[in-house]
């Protein structure tokens, strides 16, 4: 087994979906069955390879201590002032998102099994290219590859929404693409500024993220009027792209539209993985490279996170379309993650990082289930649904499971992240800010806890209306020949739907029962990524404290 070096292994995982995409394309004339089968095989092989890589990562002491694992470097332009290498590798920040991308591809393929009959080859090829791009974006260790993979996630999804989406698919695809692209162009300018800053100070043009981070630590960008507030400007440029991606309220309106119009497989990847790239960007670039600006922005983003929690929940409460409701619940849940990240305490940031995975699992599961409901009843209107529980009991069991996960029921994964985010935020509010900030922070932390009540409200209300009550007869499908007649129709999960949902359910329970298993590998990397910003924040708070009143030290690496 050691014959396969970690580096080769990593390359293999990222290449597998691309090879699979080619194979699926070659099978295109063989018809739907062959194409989807080859796509499924590819997704399974990729998941097995990725899972094996994760196991190797977990059993490597250096990786567990925060070192990058499976480092691959291709010299591209080395010599003179240039030190440009393309490099790939995994570390604690990326390992779980990498694994989640592979896992959700299984779900994305199997929920599309019956739903996609039009031009299946194109669909599955794009889905697999998207998978490769998602894997690549988390494995990238230099800015070039990160940006290339980042943009490469947009293109397949643009076509997936625009071609295989629902009625307003074109509008949704264009809005999604333009909005995200506009943000990411600004992000690109910000990254360019960092690279130039580094080059002007070290005399080397490098795109290596680790080298850039070290350089930004040694030569921080100016954060005062004399230096033109360069650090803040660069932070805002990066923020533009990441905030759209997350999305942070008020930059979220592309999300419900994109989700509602996207085919189920696209929604699964969009909600499960693509939203997380924004948060990942904060952790990878903004917080470690621009600590003073992050510290300045932290209270505002913390507050925007809380606004997102409450606002997303309220808007979700009155949605009539089940998929739109879940899209707004994503806005609310991403609010928790933003809040936790910018609380800048170890408990909250580690909770936020775990919540990325948790939200990926539960929202992907819920979107998949909504797709299954739509296939059966040809509506997502909550008012036209009803009594699904008596017709599709197992579908209901899964929906309840992911609902409970989403509303943070203890014992399931969602609770862990939510609790840690709130506990860490509370810690920040209670003893980690200057007295002048204290009341506002405490108010925000308590408000976020209120969001937990609202979250239960809109989800359980939707469940009550759609799943419980007497069985109702929504408008029937014309072409679904073998489906019987009358109210008592059973239309429970098919085998491929079970395959799509079961892996998610396993991790929902696993993370809920032993979260430490998932927290430990990420902890050193999270700590390293947030330390500079946390220190800068503590310094700001010290300056804002009028007297010599002691402010609690922020945690430091032992």
């Amino acid at each position, binding site marked *: 087994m050691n014959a396969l070096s970690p580096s080769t292994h990593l390359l293999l995982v990222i290449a597998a979906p691309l090879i699979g995409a080619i194979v699926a394309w070659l099978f295109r004339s063989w018809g739907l069955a062959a194409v989807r089968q080859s796509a499924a095989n590819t997704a399974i092989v990729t998941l097995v390879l990725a899972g094996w890589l994760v196991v190797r990562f977990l059993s490597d002491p250096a990786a567990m201590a925060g070192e990058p694992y499976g480092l691959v470097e291709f010299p591209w332009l080395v010599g003179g002032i240039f030190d440009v290498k393309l490099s790939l590798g995994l570390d604690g920040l990326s390992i779980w998102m990498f694994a989640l991308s592979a896992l959700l591809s299984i779900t994305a393929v199997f929920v599309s099994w019956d739903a996609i009959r039009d031009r299946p080859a194109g669909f599955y090829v794009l889905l697999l290219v998207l998978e490769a791009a998602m894997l690549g974006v988390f494995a990238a260790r230099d800015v070039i590859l990160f940006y290339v993979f980042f943009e490469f996630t947009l293109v397949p999804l643009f076509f997936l929404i625009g071609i295989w989406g629902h009625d307003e698919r074109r509008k949704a695809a264009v809005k999604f693409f333009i909005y995200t692209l506009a943000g990411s162009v600004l992000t690109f300018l910000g990254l360019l500024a960092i690279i130039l800053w580094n080059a002007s100070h070290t005399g080397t043009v490098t795109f290596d993220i680790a080298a850039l981070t070290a350089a930004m630590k040694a030569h921080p960008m100016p954060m005062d009027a004399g230096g033109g507030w360069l650090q803040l400007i660069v932070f805002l440029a990066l923020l533009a792209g990441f905030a759209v991606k997350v999305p942070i309220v008020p930059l979220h309106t592309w999300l419900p539209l994109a989700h509602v119009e996207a085919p189920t497989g696209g929604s699964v990847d969009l909600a499960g993985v693509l939203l997380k790239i924004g948060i990942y960007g904060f952790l990878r670039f903004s917080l470690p490279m621009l600590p003073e600006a992050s510290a300045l922005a932290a209270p505002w983003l913390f507050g925007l996170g809380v606004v997102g929690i409450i606002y997303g929940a309220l808007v979700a409460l009155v949605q009539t379309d089940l998929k739109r409701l879940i899209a707004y619940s994503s806005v609310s849940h991403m609010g928790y993650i933003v809040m936790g990240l910018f609380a800048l305490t170890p408990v909250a940031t580690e909770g936020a990082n775990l919540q990325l995975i948790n939200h990926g699992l539960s929202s992907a599961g819920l979107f998949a289930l909504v797709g299954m409901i739509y296939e059966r009843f040809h509506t997502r209107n909550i008012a036209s649904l009803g009594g699904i529980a008596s017709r599709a009991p197992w579908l209901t069991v899964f929906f309840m499971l992911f609902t409970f996960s989403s509303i943070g029921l203890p014992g399931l994964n969602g609770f862990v992240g939510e*609790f840690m985010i709130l*506990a860490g935020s*509370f810690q920040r509010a209670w003893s980690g800010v200057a007295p002048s900030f204290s009341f506002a922070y405490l108010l925000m932390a308590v408000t976020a806890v209120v969001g937990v009540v609202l979250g239960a409200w809109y989800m359980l209300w939707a469940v009550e209306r759609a799943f*419980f009550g007497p069985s109702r007869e929504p408008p029937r499908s014309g072409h679904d020949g073998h489906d019987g007649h009358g109210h008592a129709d059973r239309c429970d999960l098919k085998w491929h739907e079970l395959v799509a949902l079961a892996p998610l359910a396993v991790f929902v329970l696993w993370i809920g029962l032993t979260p430490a298993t998932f927290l*430990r590998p990420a902890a050193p990397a999270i700590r390293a990524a947030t330390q500079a910003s946390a220190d800068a924040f503590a310094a700001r708070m010290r300056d804002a404290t009028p007297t010599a009143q002691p402010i609690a030290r922020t945690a430091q690496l032992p």
Partner: protein
Amino acid sequence: MSPATLLVLVPLLPLVGAILTVALGRRLGSRGHLPAIAGIAAAAVVAVSLLLGLGREVGIGDAAHAPTARPVEMITTLWEWAGVDAAYSPPAGSPAAADTARADGATDLRSFSIPVALRLDPLTSTLLTIITCVGLLVAIYSIGYMHDDPGYPRFFALLAMFVFSMSMLVAASNFLLVYVFWEAVGACSYLLIGFWFTKPEAARAAKKAFLVNRVGDFGLAVATFLLWMTYGTLNFHDTLSADGTILPGILGQSRIADAAGYVGGAVGTAICLLLLLAACGKSAQLPLHVWLPDAMEGPTPASALIHAATMVTAGIYLVARCAPLFVVCPDALTMVSIVGTTTALVAALIGTVQNDLKRVLAYSTISQLGYMFASLGTGTMLGFTAAIFHLVTHAFFKALLFLGAGSVMHSMGGVIDMRRFGGLRRLMPITAATFLIGSLALAGVAPFAGFFSKDEILAALHSKGWPDAHGEHHDTAPASGHAAVRLPAADSGPNTAPASTMHFVSMKTAAAADAPVLDRPRTWQTLFWMSLITAGLTAFYTFRAVFMTFTGPLRVPDEAGHHAHESPPVMTIPLVILAVASAVSGWWLFATHSLSTFLAATPSLTAPAVTATATPPAFHFDLALQGTLAAALGIAIAAVGHLGRRSDGPQIERFLGPIGTLFANRFFIDQLYKALIVKPLEGVALVAAAFDRYVIDGLVDGVARIPLALGAWARHLQSGLVQRYALVGVLGTLLIMLALAARLR
């Protein structure tokens, strides 16, 4: 097997039962109950053996050795659930900072570590026994009650799941773990209330129960954060740190023994009030009681176990467990009693006009839980043990009454409106006899169980209202509970650092530690009289229900059909067992003092402020007389109105006039919530959705139109006229030349 293994088995066995039921599913057929019942029965055996073992250790029933008052507890840690190293430095001045103070004056960073740790102590052991034994009887009863239901295995899986969650809740030795199972029992309750999910009322009631509980959970969550900030850990028990020093847990023996171990003042009071909010949610106390009557939409056995005997007592457990936190905050403690007594009275008043037998019992449960809170709020040893005593007896007789109501409902074809049947004692003698015993116990008639436990609660309240009279009455040591409770509060004053209190000064919850606002004899006197009135009302509504259901001419609704007969033995045998327990448990536990002695060894109740109030067990003759008179009066009025009469005759609210309307409409509290909270919030949500669609998204689309508009404008420039292009070119060149000229000059 070691006690630790046995302790783990108590929750584990029902869990295995639940998992097996789900895994085997329909393959079990009509034997769908087997895994669950086997699991719960085995857990009950283990729980009883643990209880006996622990009883021996405390010294119960050992004539040679007087029971020791030393705390007894056992902790077993299974795995680390979540952890963050070096996460936290305690705020200056908090007890946690004192715990980690180093020689150089700095404080160490503490880890955020949540172990899955279970504990065994007398309080936990008592509750584990009740949960598993009553759970077993209810499960056996359900074999008969649920026999034709299509969801048969699902019901038993949920029941076993509930027993697992509830056992974990009382065995958890960590606030986070308590929160976990606090919500888990809520989820089981949600799924059981909504068991017949095709009924819209059931689905609605389930959601309502979950949401109202979530409001309470909000309190528990914030209390947990505050506890973590204040005490630096969430563990109940003490732990050893790496260098061998003891890190005191929040309710660990070393902190309890430390007179200055607890924070009073604003922060302490805030924590206690938030815990009280949580308890109000779970135990259906004002103002969060609204979910419990609706929860009666669930199957009756679930109501008996979850919404009467066990889950709703979780709030009692929480306050009793957190006794050391409460006793340093006299006002919070008094608030517990005020909430409890008010709830008891209000629920009893509503109960007097209910015509649905299960709802009478539901309001009775709310009312009796109010009694328990009233007792806890006294903060005395008598008060805490009396509350748990009443919890135990109530579990027996209320489960009995609910199962009896279920038996009636079963034979009446699902009809539960008391006006539609009557004289059922001829039809179902066993149900009638056992129901009567349960009612006597609930009404507090000697020598049935409720009499003794209610007597102790009244005594606890009385001793706070008339401290001097109470001292003389017993000829005991002059340790007046009132003064003893105040003392540690004053002690803890300086311990409360300004840094941590400043957050709450501006809030109404703040109360100075050394000047109790609520904790005065006058308050307690009022509470005592309210409790006595409630006792009379309890007897009235209980016997009104008994007379309406079981006396008068025999009447059976049409829905009953061929069901109209006594229930099968699988249902009546649990009734008989519970009737025996309701008849003798009170007398036995009182006469031997075994329960109070046993509970006194619970670490939480060995706090000096609690032990200082300990009085030798005594029978309070005058209080018993007052209680009995109140009960007799209530029964007499019920008899005048309903004994031997047709139950569809004139109802009590006719005599009460507008007040009756108020009671019948449950004081309009549900409507008030709808008008003041639900509707406004839905309005805000609609506004937010409109804002989202038209303002935010409108702006985005507007911004997106700017390039289009620019393009449209720019299109005019591209007219295709070469002359114009030439003109523009010339003008542009001119501009550049001018700019260069300016440079050169």
